[in-house]
């Protein structure tokens, strides 16, 4: 990443700084979550670490004030890009009434925020794929130039809903982008026990849509792929499948212990390639990011997270009686 690639993509230095800031925020929030979990303050964390770079890059390639997104549980980078705040994420982690995702009803990582056009997600994987297709169908029916963006893990791409959703989107030529975040594991199951294809994007041809695999540790490559797919979608050229390959740097979740199924060296090697770091290196090379600036950002973010944590920790739970609310609307 030594030449100036980003200008060719139409990205300004300022854009890059903004992207990096979101990646950094995502990473620091995630790290804080683990601390809170290990100190017994929050019962559960599911992590974005290793995938922030691709999540943020993909989001920035979209219209973040009009497009719809159906994120999956690791997408802290996506939801921050689409307008969720650190405070809101902390409210979710602490399961407090004010949590905009679910008012503390769902576990962390189950995102949803209508005002930011972020679909509510559940735990059964891959169900969001047809939902995103439905958004795209509605957008087409209403002649809106909206793109519907949906993500999932590579393991989840083996569910029937992936197949049915993508096929539906292709037949109807809908403006939907499916991004598979291939982090090489589905909990303990390594890629080679999940699929026998060379690339997850090889599935695209079977639906009759373009498919591309990009290095998920290279945010500019991800940006480019998503940008092109979004342009095609807005031009009425239909859906795309993008596979962004990176690595899951943490255990599957705070309930998992990954030492039984993968070597420490493997994890260490992956850390070196982590897009979060390589992107920072690129920004430094390009003189976009200085130590000073980074220091300042870190400081701001730390304060933001501290404040968010304090707020969320002392915020009230929903009342026990509220359990009966919102089963039906009428």
């Amino acid at each position, binding site marked *: 990443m030594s030449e100036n690639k980003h200008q060719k993509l139409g990205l300004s230095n300022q854009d890059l700084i903004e992207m990096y800031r979101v990646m950094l925020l995502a990473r620091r929030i995630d790290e804080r979550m683990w601390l809170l979990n290990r100190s017994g303050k929050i019962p559960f964390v599911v992590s974005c670490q290793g995938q922030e770079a691709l999540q943020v890059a993909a989001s920035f390639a979209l219209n973040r004030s009009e497009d*719809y997104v*159906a994120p999956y549980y690791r997408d802290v980078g996506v939801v921050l890009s689409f307008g969720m705040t650190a405070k809101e994420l902390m409210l979710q982690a602490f399961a407090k009434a004010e*949590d*905009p*995702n*679910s*008012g503390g*009803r*769902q576990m962390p990582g*189950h995102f*949803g*925020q*209508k005002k930011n056009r972020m*679909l*509510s997600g*559940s*735990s*059964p994987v891959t*169900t969001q*794929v*047809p*939902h*995103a*297709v*439905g*958004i*795209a*169908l*509605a*957008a*087409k*029916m209403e002649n809106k130039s909206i793109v*519907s963006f949906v993500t999932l893990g590579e393991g989840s791409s083996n569910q*029937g*809903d992936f*197949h*049915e*959703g993508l*096929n*539906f989107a292709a*037949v*109807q030529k809908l403006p939907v982008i499916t991004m598979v975040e291939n982090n090489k594991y589905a909990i303990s199951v390594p890629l080679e026990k999940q699929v026998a294809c060379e690339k997850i994007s090889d599935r695209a041809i079977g639906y009759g849509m373009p498919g591309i695999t990009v290095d998920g540790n290279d945010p500019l490559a991800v940006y480019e792929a998503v940008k092109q797919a979004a342009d095609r979608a807005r031009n009425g050229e239909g859906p795309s499948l993008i596979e962004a390959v990176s690595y899951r740097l943490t255990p599957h979740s705070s309930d998992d212990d990954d030492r039984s199924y993968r070597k420490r060296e493997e994890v260490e090697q992956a850390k070196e390639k982590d897009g979060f770091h390589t992107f920072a290196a690129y920004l430094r090379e390009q003189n976009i990011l200085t130590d000073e600036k980074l220091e300042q950002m870190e400081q701001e973010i730390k304060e933001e997270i501290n404040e968010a944590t304090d707020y969320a920790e002392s915020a009230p739970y929903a009342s026990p009686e509220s359990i009966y*609310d*919102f*089963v*039906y*609307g*009428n």
Partner: protein
Amino acid sequence: MQKVHRMPVQNQFMTSYMETKGGKMMPILSYIQAVTQAMKEEMERDEKVFVLGEDVGVRGGVFRATEGLYEQFGESRVIDTPLAESAIAGVGIGAAMYGMRPVAEMQFADFILPAVNQIISEAAKMRYRSNNDWTCPITIRAPYGGGVHGALYHSQSIEAIFANQPGLKIVMPSSPYDVKGLLKAAIRDEDPVLFLEHKRAYRSIKEEVPDTDYTLPIGKADIKREGSDITIITYGLCVQWAIQAAEKLASEGIDVHILDLRTIYPLDQEAIKQAASKTGKVLLITEDNKEGSIIGEVAAIISEHCLFDLDAPVKRLAGPDVPAMPYAPPLEKEFMINQDKIEAAIRDLAEF
């Protein structure tokens, strides 16, 4: 596999029932025509309403429920989908989240099973899990029921699979008039509604249906016959058999009260209690297998609330506990509820 069977038109069903409606001239519609009319009117009323499913387009549905809609509203609002029920439900859910009013057709209720995850995990829980932020106003129509030579997989009553899912509503109308009013209400409902139509009723049940715009309340049961000796609580096509049986037994001096559940989830508990207490002798009827069917829940409500009003044990008349209705005619007949079985059960209760 498609199974649209030519059924004998059983007009004998309706004669008596229609007399009781009496009055001014109204168009007579079959049960399936009422389905079509409800969708047509709703699509005219609201641009956000659209239909999706297998063969719903040019073909007008394998039962012809969507007949004419493709011609009137075009292929963008009457969408022939790929053969994939989880996508039909799931894409519909997404569109509903956006603000559309999808009416998804499952070609047969038996084929809704690949979509169970989308319906139960997603549609039913959308409002609750998002703390009222997102909603999912989808209607899912599916033809259910037996007696049409449909064998195991074109005859099932599948409502019990879904009748334990708060967030979801399940409507099972018994007559054309109810179909129209309830289907319109379902399409306008702010929550997901499973709308189950009895295949055998499609062409065999006819009655006067106003061509005006009306809805009927979801969640409310309906008294189809006032009576004082024995209470029947049932739903769907069985209501028609029950009315027939009741008319017949009236001449023998047995006066039957009939409560049509209409909405089978969540149940109208008040109406059930009143109906049960009214006569003290209760016959519950379903075409579904007996154990675990929704009339078990009805019996439970009665046993919780009306114990001291009962003069006889609650009686259940249901399909046998075998996996599903076989194809060979003598076997299918053995499975199905019919007027004779209901008459016998009523007499039993009357004599108790």
